């Protein structure tokens, strides 16, 4: 057992080699900075030692982590744990679940009174990403279709409200379903031809589609006013009452809370429905799934269209919240952030996705000093999660049916 916890001499030696390799690797880009116009070279030797030290310790940590995981998985097989781990108990057992939910609910309901408008605005953004994450979760996490152009549907929603509002004066509540429907329509239009493709091609086509939508919005000036965007979009109305800015923001906040709750409810019901089970099955094995008589294309299309619908709805709310849209809000990076939320939180897991969205959106807001490093960290998170913990922070819990030998009865058990 001792060699699993202790860092060996061998590891230190290998770690030093790794550090040397990374010092060499990052040498031109990290150490030298040139100004080709003024012909100045800036040497930043301190970076070299930073890289060396960081890679040495990261290597050691990763080795310790991998070894721990190996021994713990062996332990798991030896003695099956009878009790659910704490994080799962929190979600599944009602005696933990209900008080925790009440506490969170109270906190979220009183948020606009407890904190400033600025904080509320940030929270609205975070909640928007929760819904976007849950929407993408249907597509990526549940149905296993890697969609890298998710932001396109978000853009469709946002622009449909922006355009319908400025040209025809349609209100928020009228456009909300229209935006959702339009996004769904786009989802079906794109999904119909491309869903025959294998997973990795699908990723590229959706990525291409996302870029096409953004480029069209950027270049078709007569339609979308190009890169300058559309401004002065009306905020969401409430029976025609005039609201101050603060009130309007609080109102948007509660609207978002309602949408989040509705999304959680619907997504949760969907996952355990017939179509939800079909999605999971499709993710695990397409061929076996078809052999069981599941219509592959229709099932995939439903997932794709439903995911798009939520993106469209959030898009409408985004346009109403910021009162301004331009194509710069809908770049590939936005898709990457939403994907990162789903991957970090745990693909297919609702609680995980909510947690992922809150972590990834709120942390960079409050750690302003590190905001430059945001995308760097997102990229690193995607890689490390895939290598070390592919199931995410909170892994998905699926309902399974097992026969209990002692009672001879069917019992429902929650299993990872």
């Amino acid at each position, binding site marked *: 057992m001792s060699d699993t916890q202790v860092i060996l001499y061998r590891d230190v030696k290998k770690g030093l080699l790794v550090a040397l390799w990374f010092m060499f690797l990052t040498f031109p880009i990290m150490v030298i900075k040139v100004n080709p116009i003024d012909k100045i070279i800036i040497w930043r030797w301190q970076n070299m030692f930073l890289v060396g030290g960081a890679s040495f310790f990261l290597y050691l940590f990763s080795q310790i982590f991998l070894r721990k995981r190996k021994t713990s998985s062996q332990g798991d097989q030896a003695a099956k744990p009878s009790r659910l781990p704490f994080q799962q108990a929190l979600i599944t057992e009602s005696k933990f679940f209900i008080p925790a939910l009440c506490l969170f609910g109270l906190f979220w309901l009183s948020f606009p009174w407890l904190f400033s408008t600025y904080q509320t605005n940030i929270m609205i953004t975070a909640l928007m990403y929760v819904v976007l994450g849950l929407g993408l979760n249907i597509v990526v996490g549940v149905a*296993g279709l890697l969609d890298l152009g998710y932001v396109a549907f978000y853009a469709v929603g946002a622009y449909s409200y922006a355009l319908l509002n400025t040209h025809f004066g349609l209100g928020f509540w009228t456009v909300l379903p229209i935006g959702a429907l339009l996004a769904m329509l786009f989802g079906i239009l794109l999904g119909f031809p491309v869903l025959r493709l294998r997973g*990795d091609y699908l*990723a590229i*086509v959706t990525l*291409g589609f996302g870029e096409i939508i953004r480029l069209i919005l950027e270049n078709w000036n007569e339609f979308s006013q190009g890169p300058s965007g559309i401004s002065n979009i009306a905020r969401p109305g409430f029976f025609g009452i005039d609201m101050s800015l603060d009130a309007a923001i609080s109102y948007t906040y509660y609207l978002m809370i309602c949408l989040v709750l509705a999304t959680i409810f619907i997504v949760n019901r969907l996952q355990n429905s017939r179509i939800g089970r079909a999605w999971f099955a499709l993710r695990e094995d397409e061929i076996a799934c078809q052999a069981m008589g599941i219509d592959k294309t229709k099932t995939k299309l439903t997932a794709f269209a439903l995911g798009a619908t939520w993106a469209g709805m959030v898009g409408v709310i985004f346009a109403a919240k910021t009162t301004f849209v331009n194509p710069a809000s809908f770049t590939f990076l936005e898709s990457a952030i939403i994907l990162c939320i789903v991957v970090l939180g745990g693909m297919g897991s609702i609680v995980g996705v909510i947690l992922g969205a809150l972590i990834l959106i709120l942390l960079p807001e409050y750690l302003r000093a590190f905001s430059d490093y945001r995308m760097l960290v997102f*990229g690193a998170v995607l890689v490390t999660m*895939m290598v070390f913990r592919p199931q995410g922070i909170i892994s998905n819990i699926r309902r399974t049916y097992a026969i209990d030998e002692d009672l001879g009865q069917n019992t429902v058990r929650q299993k990872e």
Partner: protein
Amino acid sequence: MDYFIELFLSGLTRSSIYALIALGYTMVYGIIGLINFAHGEIYMIGAFTALIVSTVLAIYGFPFFAIVALTVLAAIIWSSAYGYTVEKIAYKPLRNAPRLSPLISAIGMSIFLQNYVLLAQTSDFLPFPALIPEFQFMEPYAHIIGSSDLVILLTTITVMVLLTLLIKYTKTGQAMRATSQDKKMAMLVGINVDKIIGITFIIGSALAAIGGVLIASHIGQINFYIGFIAGIKAFTAAVLGGIGSIPGAFLGSLILGLTESFATGYVSSDYEDVFAFSLLVLILIFRPAGLLGKSSIEKV
């Protein structure tokens, strides 16, 4: 007519660069079935390394040809090192994971490398020194084809021939073909599959570095974002020709480069990228295996 020839030749130059990058995609896909999203970033890093090395050497007053030779060498060395490291960190641990995992990891790597260069260097466009000299004998034709276009074309053709020879006639090439056909069987006959995969990444990255230096010198400026669009377009070219097939990568690049060149020349330059993406979507819908690719039948 002159305009047509000009567009045709600039299309050829474009195609050559796409081909150099597309080869990396196609080789990696052929061998481990993974879309290496970070490949465009490797190309960008090659261009950045070249910029840094050439500027430093120029400031220290090296002669022109020494600068060119050392710059290209440095770009190749560091690009290959990055390609190799990316494979070891992000793809190797996921060899037996579900298909989606390495793909997400690759996207993460691409975002990471982009922002790494952005933070360590700059987000501005940097002027890139002209590493390709203007040849005297080219002067009469200068209105149709520049010296750098000629160099790019010739380099690409040379690289293509060398690569084909390498894959057809050397031991390594044989091992690469064996690995791409059946990894387990290759292991059984004594091929070090991990080493072959590493070599594939190194060759692909070196080609991307050559492409990076050539195009940066041709266009004259670079920034951290050039890899993303170039990568996607090269991928489009690879898919167009049939991913996994090396002649397919050339054919695909040729079609894509010419289409783009004519479309921007005769229609509109605002939608340059839209043409490429639409072509990609259309190809995948109507002929997912590409022009020269074999459609694979999935067996249970």
